[in-house]
Structure formats: C-alpha cells, structure tokens
C-alpha cells in the first residue's frame, strides 16, 4: 500500500506531463489493436483467415491499461480472444496477422492460428482455446516466479464466462494458499458467447469471486484506460510486495460478435450502438488528449503510423508463404 500511495503521490506532482505521455501511449496502443482487428475482420471476410476468429474491438482499454502497469519480464496469458494482448505485449502486428492467415511468417509458423499464439521473448504465454485453462496455467507462471524468488508478476486474463469454471476457483485457492504473485483480470464483456452474465453467474459482482480465499478485488471501468491503469498499478504493487493474488473485474464491452460467425441475436443493435457512441475507450482517450491540448497533428501522426503498420501487416500476412509441408511433422517433441 505504501508503494501504491507513493506512486500516486509522484503521479500528482508531475500530473500533466506524465498523463499526456501515458495517454498518448495508450491511445496509440488501443488504436493499433482496433485497426488490427478491423483489418482481421476484413481479411476474414475475404476468406484469408479461417476457423474461429474472436475480435477484441471495444475491449482495447483493458489490456492496454493493464500493460501500462507492467514491466519487462512480467508474464501475460489469456484466452482465445488474444490478438489485442499480443499487440499490447509488444508482439509485432505482422507476425500476428500472418499467423491468422496461416502463413510461415506467423508467430507459430502457421500451426496455431488465431487462438494459439505465443511469444517466449515477450513473455506472452498464449492464446488458449479451452475456456478457463489459462487460469491455472497463469497461476503456474506466478508459481515459477515465487519458486525463483523473482518479483515478476503473472497477469492472467479470462472472461466473465470462464469465471464459472471449476479450475478458476481451484486456482484462486492455490494462489491464495501459496501467496502467488498473480493478477487475475476478469474481462467482463457481459456476454459469454450468447449468454449474458446475468444468466450465467449467480453473483453479479465478480470482483468478489476471490473473497472466500481472501483475494482482494475491485471493479474497474474498462472504457477508461487510465482507470484501468490505476487499478492495475495497485494490483501489481500488491503482488510484487509478496501479498499474494489480486483480482480485477474490468467492465468492458465487445462490439463484435463472440466470433466472426455470431449473428448476435442476444442483444439489440441499439445496445451495441449506445456503447460505441457514448463510451468508446479510444474516443474517450482522444477527448482526453484534446483536453490536454495535444496538438491535433500529433494525434494524426499516430493515426497515420498505425495505418501504415496495419497495412504492412496485412500485406505481409498475404505474401508470407504457407508453411512447408515438412512443417506438419516438426515441433511435436523436442529432441531429448
């Protein structure tokens, strides 16, 4: 707590300059994810991306806000709605997009696809297609930090749908029992596929899900990237201080369907439009930048840069060759 308080104090003294830099960084990161996902949706529409493709549009402030609270070496793991997390951890857009198109230039050389991508270098541990499985694995990442006596923190993301899985509660118990440095982030986008959280969870305040094990939690406005960062700062400081796990329930919203093939009949278009027009995380950040008197040219420069990165990623994802047929048999086992 002392550490968090001090961080807040430091933040206040140089508030304007610090905030501007952070907001610019957040804006760029969120926009990159938004544009990436829009492009992925387009490539999917053209038949260049196959299978399941779960877009993160609307939820960008969650991963970007959390990432702002992390330092190099902290581990990140999430579910199958993972493109945003990869970009936020610093993985390159071209490698992610090329994995979506199933090409050799992809992070998994075309063998994982949208739901299964990893980067050892960026400490991104996937990309998991089994709902909830990443929660106990993420607890294990925290265990390895505990075992090695390092101050690294594992950030383990899952949806409000996954929050009902048995192994999530098993993980809460283990993490609390062993005081493991794991920040559990429930990205509550209100719908587990087509089932609303009201129809799936007996309790609506998911930030209390760790309470039986004494895991502190808080609800966060996931459309405000700075609010997410502030909550994450607190959670990460708690973990780094050796106080055990922390739970954040981040209230967010996905604009698109559960996956590309979701007709979204479980919610009205008005609901989606209202979320988009009144409380979009990127628009919120843009307004904040304007309020901070950031030059419009600087914002435009970010927009242009992001556009170039995404176009380059899309080009690369189409020009990178398919994996060689011999790749079928590689990476099953390591030589021992």
């Amino acid at each position: 707590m002392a550490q968090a308080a001090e961080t807040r104090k430091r933040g206040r003294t140089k508030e304007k300059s610090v905030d501007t830099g952070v907001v610019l960084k957040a804006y760029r990161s969120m926009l990159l994810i938004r544009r990436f996902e829009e492009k992925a949706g387009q490539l999917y529409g053209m038949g260049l991306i196959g299978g399941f493709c779960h877009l993160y549009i609307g939820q960008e402030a969650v991963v970007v806000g959390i990432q702002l609270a992390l330092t190099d070496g902290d581990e990140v793991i999430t579910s199958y709605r993972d493109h945003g997390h990869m970009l936020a951890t610093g993985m390159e857009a071209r490698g992610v997009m090329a994995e979506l198109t199933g090409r050799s230039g992809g992070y998994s050389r075309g063998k994982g696809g949208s739901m299964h991508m990893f980067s050892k270098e960026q400490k991104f541990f996937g990309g998991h297609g089994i709902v909830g499985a990443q929660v106990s694995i993420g607890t294990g990442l925290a265990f390895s930090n505990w075992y090695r006596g390092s101050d690294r923190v594992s950030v383990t993301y899952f949806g409000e749908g996954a929050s009902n899985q048995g192994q999530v509660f098993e993980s809460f118990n283990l993490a609390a029992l062993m005081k493991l440095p794991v920040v559990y982030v429930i990205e509550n986008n209100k719908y587990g596929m087509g089932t609303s959280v009201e129809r799936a969870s007996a309790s609506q305040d998911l930030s209390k899900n760790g309470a039986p094990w004494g895991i502190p939690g808080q609800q966060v406005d996931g459309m405000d990237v700075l609010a997410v960062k502030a909550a994450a700062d607190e959670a990460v400081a708690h973990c780094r201080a050796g106080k055990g796990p922390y739970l954040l329930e981040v209230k967010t919203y996905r604009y698109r369907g559960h996956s590309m093939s979701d007709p979204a009949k479980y919610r009205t278009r008005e609901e989606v439009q209202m979320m988009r027009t009144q409380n979009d995380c990127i628009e919120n950040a843009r307004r904040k930048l304007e309020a901070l008197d950031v030059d419009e040219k600087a914002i435009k420069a970010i927009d242009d840069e992001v556009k170039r990165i995404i176009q380059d990623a899309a080009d690369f994802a189409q020009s990178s060759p398919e994996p060689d047929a011999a790749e079928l048999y590689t990476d099953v086992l390591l030589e021992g």
Partner: protein
Amino acid sequence: MATQILMPALSPTMTEGKLAKWLKGVGDEVKAGDVIAEIETDKATMEVEAVDEGKLARILIDEGTEGVAVNTPIAVLTVNGEDAGSAEPPPKAETPAEPKVAAQATDPAAVADQAAKGQRKEALEPAPAPEKDWGPTKPATVREALRDAMALEMRRDEDVFLLGEEVAQYQGAYKISQGLLEEFGPRRIIDTPITEHGFAGLATGAALNGLRPIVEFMTFNFAMQAMDQIINSAAKTLYMSGGQMGCPIVFRGPNGAASRVAAQHSQCYASWYAHVPGLKVVAPWSSADAKGLLRAAIRDPNPVVFLENEILYGQTFECPVDEDFILPIGRAKIERTGSHVTIVAFSIMVGVAMKAAEKLAEQGIEAEVINLRSLRPLDTATIVESVKKTSRLVTVEEGWPFAGIGAEVSMQIVEHAFDWLDAPPVRVHGVDVPLPYAANLEKLALPQPEWVVDAVKKIV
C-alpha cells in the same frame, strides 16, 4: 484512393448470401466500424462493418439481391475530399478478390504434392544396440528406486520439484516421497490440496516457464480430472507455438488395478495417453526400470506420463548402484530370450509374462519376453526383430482390449512383419468390464499367467 467493399464471408463455411439491406446510402460518410449493410445466409442475419473511412460513392449490389458470392464487390468507398465521380470506372480492389490462399488450398494437385513432400519416412529404425552394462547391482524395491531417482535428479537440477497430494508431510500416500521433504524442504516438495485440475494446470504453467515439475497423482484415476491440462496444454503447446514453448514435466503415479478397490480406482490408462502426439508414455516394471526411466523422464524436455503400479511398489529387484545409471526412453528390454513365441508386456504384466514363460519352458516352449518399458515412442524395431525370429506374437496388458496397447502392437507387427507370422497375434488382457470388487470376480477379470500360457498354446 477509392476502395471496393467486398461481400464478406462471415463464417468458415459461407460461400454466398443475400444482401438484405443497405444501412448507408450513396453520399453518406462512413467511419471505420460503422454498420453499412445487413446480409443474410441460411443460418443468420449479420452486419457488414466498414473497415475504412470515406464516402459511400456507389452501391454495386442492390438490397434484396440473393446469392451474392463472397468477395463480390458490393460498393465503392472514396476517401474524404475525393470526387465520387473518380470512382468510375470501378477502381481496382484494395486486395485481390481471389485470395491466393484459397486458390492454393483448393487445388487438389498442389495439396497432393504437398502431402507427398511432407510424407514421413515409414521405414523402421534398426533395432537398438544392446543395453549398456551398468555393473554391480543391489536389491531395491520399486518404491526406493522411484524415490532415489527423484532425489538424484533434484540434487542435480534446482529447477526440479515435486508436487501433489500428501507428497511432503505425509511422506507420500504410497510413501514414494519418503524423506524428500527433509532433504529438499517445503519449497521443492509441495503438498497440494485435492485439486488435480488446478495443480496439473499450475505445474504445466511452471513448466512452460522453464521449471521441471514432477506431478504426483495419488493414482492415475484422479488424473482424469486433469486430463485437459495434460493433453490440451502440456502435450500440444510446443506444436501450437511453432516450437517456441516446450513443457518439461513428468506426470507420475500408480496406474491400473491395485487390490480390491473396484472400478473407479482400477483402470489402466496406457492406451489413453499413448494415443496422444506430444506426450511420451513410460511404464516401468522392475526397480531398474523405475529408477532409470524416471531419471530420463525428469531430464526429458517433453511432457512424460509415467505409469507406475501400486502392487509393484513393494517388490524387490536388482538395481544398478552406479550413480549415473539412467535408461533411454523409447527402448524395450528383452527380459528372457526364446525362439518359439514373442510375448510383449509392460508394467506389472511383465511379471505375469515371466511366470508364464517359466511354465511354458517346463512344457518345452521357449518364450521371448519383451518388457516394453516405453509405450510412446514404442520400440517397434525390437518387437519386429523378435517376431521375425519366433513368428508368433502374444500381447499381455491389464487394460481393456478395445483400442488397447495390444491392438497397437499387433497392428505394428501386421504392418512390419506380416510375412513372418505363422499364426494370428493373440491378445491377453483385462476382461472388458469395469473392475468388480468381489475377490473372486476381480481375479477373474485380471490376466493371470495361465491365461498367457493358454494363449501361447493356441498358436504354438
């Protein structure tokens, strides 16, 4: 630059749809993410969202049009300030309407060619060199051998640790971890709550992050709770990550029937795990097997399922005393040589096969007994070489016959030594029922040496 908006595919299987409704009209400003049209397929109605900003310059497909093929241009978008008129004639699509990948994937010749190039070499590797002579031995129980293997590897590598139910303070439910807590402390010998799914996932995460966990399941019956983590996470991540993320982990514990514990506690999982690419599966019989193979499993960079047997824990065998003693995974051992029939067994059934071989010898039949030791990879070469000598195969396993290890071994012989067989292979196996509790029924359900003798005599 003007861009074409194409009819999108909104599911993996969609090829065409109806352009049900335009929600934007010609001249409307469009922002990325705006819903511009609705399309209908036989399954659902879906929305088309704009990817680029601009002005809707032309609508190329009227609303209400049925059967619009995916990737057909449906509208033209011009960027702000550009004259809508400049979009005529229809501009070049931003990306080719015929995606390259689709063309490649659907060309049967190209697919066949790729498949041929990727075809794995099916030729058998030569049978392995004879096992190294490890010198002097002394008697040890399987229990001691397993404990010693873990202790030796933990002294050797700080990243190795043991976790599971009752492994620390209780000294192991079957006393396999006796003394380890005293030597290595609670950081490396970790008692877990009864939470197989959770701790198997936790250990898998630790392994993905570079540690070397040994997960003890009190029995493999309980590992079914953790099956998803073992298979979907531990076994597949290396492949799904394009080779980036290995998972050096050992899942070990007693497998198969114990004694009078009935159906839920008596099941052989050998064929379940052996089915899975990305796993290695080991099933030791003797103390030497247990010690040498467990050391190899702990050092292996891949997930290894290590199937022990509760009844064997207390049995004593000669075991090499050499500090460096280790056995390679993937190599079978010929426990007894013979020329009339090859008997293939693993785990506790090796003992059954050895007893049967003694009885057969009394009747003038010399059986060669192969202890598989590893089930995946399977040492097919050693079995094939033996069958080429004996021309007869009997497999013995405690598990059920259907899709079992015996079925797989028999098929390997059919593929690689069919012409040498003088009789069809015979399987000896546990009876195809959940294991009963009653002493007499239990005995009737599990393979006995006499069953093996009878099976051999059918074909010799």
